[in-house]
């Protein structure tokens, strides 16, 4: 009996020891992963890059590099939404290798989010006190949502006078919360456009209604073009998609541009979509042959259906959509990007701005390391170009013609000048977005346009007031 007890005790000890050994091994493995320069190859590259870096630094990057002197060893996490190739691990690994070549003691672990579940993942992490250190997204999340809730770090020290003088004013105001604090440091921007199937438009003799060179058209010509394409036999010309919030900037821009309506006031404190212009625009869209209010598809579906030829035009479009779909061989016709139609042919396009924000996790070393990372990615003269190019969008300051020789990007560059007000920072944005596509669904089912729009504005403004 005693012998069995001794044996049992011995076996228990062995099991405990083996567990402890496993634990030790795991933590060791973690440490290995956490090593900022695990690959010898990277280390050998680093000095070479390091010698290059100081030589290339301009005045701007000297200031940008200031935190480098104080950069301490730290492990930081970057969660990135799929902003162009910033959602591609192969590309991001390369960008981080560049960073580690200059800052070998800061280790960056990346997690890739998507727009379907990304918000939920971050919100869950916030509630579990596991928020990432860095996140790459736009002001509607970084500033209007997490910033307004006091979760983000003030990035005032990155927003130096020089940075303010370089970064476009419209971008600056979007990165600042209503409390005047900068919660985002921007990297890239784009103007969302629409696109048409040029082959079908040509066959329908509808190209006469648009200006191919400037990519613009008037509201009157838009109506004529849609009618021509419809009469040609393409009964599904386009869709006001509204099954969810995906790609809703397209439907907002379409409605706002047709008769010059606005979505919010200039101060971004109130929703103004119930203007006569917007009501008129929605009534026009509802009455047009070939334009379907479709509550079964969202922006992503619309893009797919445009690429496969179901629709002759897409309202959810930009340079990256074309690049990605061309690369994947999804398009077998000529795409013509267009600005949204407006009465005077001077559109106000909905912009997209993406940049970095830092979650305040209470660790000064990590916050400093995160700032160093942002500074390197967005301000280092050589790296900033690479970082922006990885997004397939345009820089938020003058970096020269970074897409020289790239025909597609040059074609889309003409739309950046039409970028309108970045209003997505109004309070209650999440609820307003939902109310928007619910309103489109109501109109699609035959509800009175004015009543539906008034209901939308009431809901959205109540959310904006509650957010204050």
């Amino acid at each position, binding site marked *: 009996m005693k012998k069995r007890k001794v044996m049992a005790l011995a076996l228990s000890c062995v099991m405990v020891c083996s567990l402890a050994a496993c634990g030790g091994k795991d933590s060791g493995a973690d440490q290995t992963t956490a090593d900022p320069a695990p690959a010898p190859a990277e280390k050998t590259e680093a000095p070479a890059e390091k010698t290059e870096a100081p030589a290339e630094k301009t005045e701007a990057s000297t200031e940008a590099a200031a935190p480098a002197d104080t950069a301490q060893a730290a492990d930081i996490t970057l969660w990135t939404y799929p902003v162009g190739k910033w959602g591609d691990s192969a590309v991001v690994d390369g960008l981080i290798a560049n960073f580690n070549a200059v800052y070998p003691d800061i280790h960056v672990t990346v997690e890739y989010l998507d727009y379907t579940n990304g*918000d*939920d993942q971050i*919100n869950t992490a*916030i*509630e579990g006190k596991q928020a990432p250190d860095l996140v790459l997204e736009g002001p509607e999340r970084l500033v209007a949502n997490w910033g307004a*809730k*006091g*979760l983000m770090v003030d990035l005032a020290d990155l927003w130096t006078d020089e940075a303010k003088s370089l970064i476009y004013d419209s971008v600056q105001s979007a990165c600042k919360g209503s409390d005047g604090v900068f919660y985002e440091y921007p990297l890239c921007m784009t103007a969302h456009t629409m696109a048409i199937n040029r082959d079908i438009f040509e066959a329908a003799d509808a190209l006469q209604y648009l200006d191919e060179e400037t990519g613009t058209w008037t509201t009157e010509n838009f109506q004529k073009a849609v009618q021509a394409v419809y009469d040609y036999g393409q009964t*599904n010309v386009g869709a006001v998609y*509204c*099954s*969810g919030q995906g790609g809703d900037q397209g439907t907002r821009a379409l409605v706002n541009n047709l008769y010059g309506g606005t979505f919010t006031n200039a101060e971004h404190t109130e929703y103004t979509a119930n203007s006569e212009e917007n009501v008129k625009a929605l009534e026009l869209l509802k009455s047009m042959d070939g334009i379907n209010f*479709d*509550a*079964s*598809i969202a922006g992503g579906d619309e893009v797919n*259906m445009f690429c496969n030829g*179901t629709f002759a035009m897409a309202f959810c479009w930009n340079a990256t959509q074309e690049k990605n779909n061309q690369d994947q061989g999804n398009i077998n016709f000529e795409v013509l990007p267009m600005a949204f139609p407006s009465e005077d042919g001077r559109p106000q396009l909905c912009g997209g701005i993406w940049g970095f924000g830092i979650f305040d996790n209470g660790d000064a070393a990590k916050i400093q390391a995160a700032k160093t990372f942002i500074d390197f990615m967005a301000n280092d003269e050589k790296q900033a170009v690479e970082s922006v190019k990885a997004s397939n969008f345009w820089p938020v300051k003058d970096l020269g013609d970074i897409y020289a020789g790239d025909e597609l990007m040059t074609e889309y560059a003409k739309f950046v000048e039409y970028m309108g007000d970045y209003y997505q920072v109004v309070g209650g944005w*999440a*609820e307003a977005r*939902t109310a928007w*596509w*619910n309103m489109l*669904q*109501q109109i*699609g*089912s035959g509800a009175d346009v004015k009543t539906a729009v008034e209901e939308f504005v009431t809901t959205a403004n109540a959310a904006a007031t509650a957010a204050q």
Partner: protein
Amino acid sequence: MAKNSGSSMSKALVRRETIAGYAFMLPSLLFFLGFVIYPMVQCVFTSFFDATMNREDIFIGFANYVELFQDKVFLGALKNTVIIVVVSVPVTCIFSLWVSSVIYDLAGPACSAFRCIFYLPVVTGSVAVAVVWKWMFNNYYGIFNYIGTSTGLIEKNINWLGDEKFALGCIILILLTTSVGQPIVLYVSALNNVDQSLVEAAEVDGATKFQCFWKIKWAQIMPTTLYILVITTINSFQCFALIQLLTSGGPNHSTDTIMYYIYYNAFKLYRYGYGNAMGVVLAIIIALLSAVQFKMTESK
């Protein structure tokens, strides 16, 4: 003396066995307490607060519950959820019982093949299921519209998921395909366990097939039926993934369910207290219905 010694020995043995029993239960108990009981208590507790992200919770008593029953979207979601349960539970039970009674006495491989076919949607991920159904229901090139228009059943394409007249029905149809797998497997197993001697005796006494089924088999598979009723009811009440992936509650809130509305309030609007209040109401409804189902099947 010997008696006393024997009694103390047995007491010690009982104590040791009790301790061992609890020790074996401990891991599950800890799991149950940590992942079921604690969240339940927390859910009820939070439902009395105005709770949101990164702000101190504010005690508001029953205000969330009062708001719930004045919230038209919640009441609509409740109605949709009840419709899903009322349609889906009986149809799932009847259909799976019918399929099981047809296939349970087939030769081994044939029965297994049918079980696999019906169980496949259960083990397929919700996203994959949703993608396939979304394609089939597509307004422009979906297979249902293709078959419908080419056979003359429908005049023009129907926007199945985009029309409030059809959307909820489509969701229920998809839910049925993912719900019948488990009941079929359970019923096949239960029917195979029915005492054949009773069936044979009844047949000898002249009972018809229907009488054999109703008087003998049905009675013997009643515990399985009860289990199936309860789990199907709970699953139907918790219908969420299909809604999120296919309709986001639309069009015009016609496919909103309580689970989806909880998600929307808690994760999109950060109204944790309000979401929890809905969770409590949903839990009470499910508990009441399950109790009724237990009572009804017990009385039989």
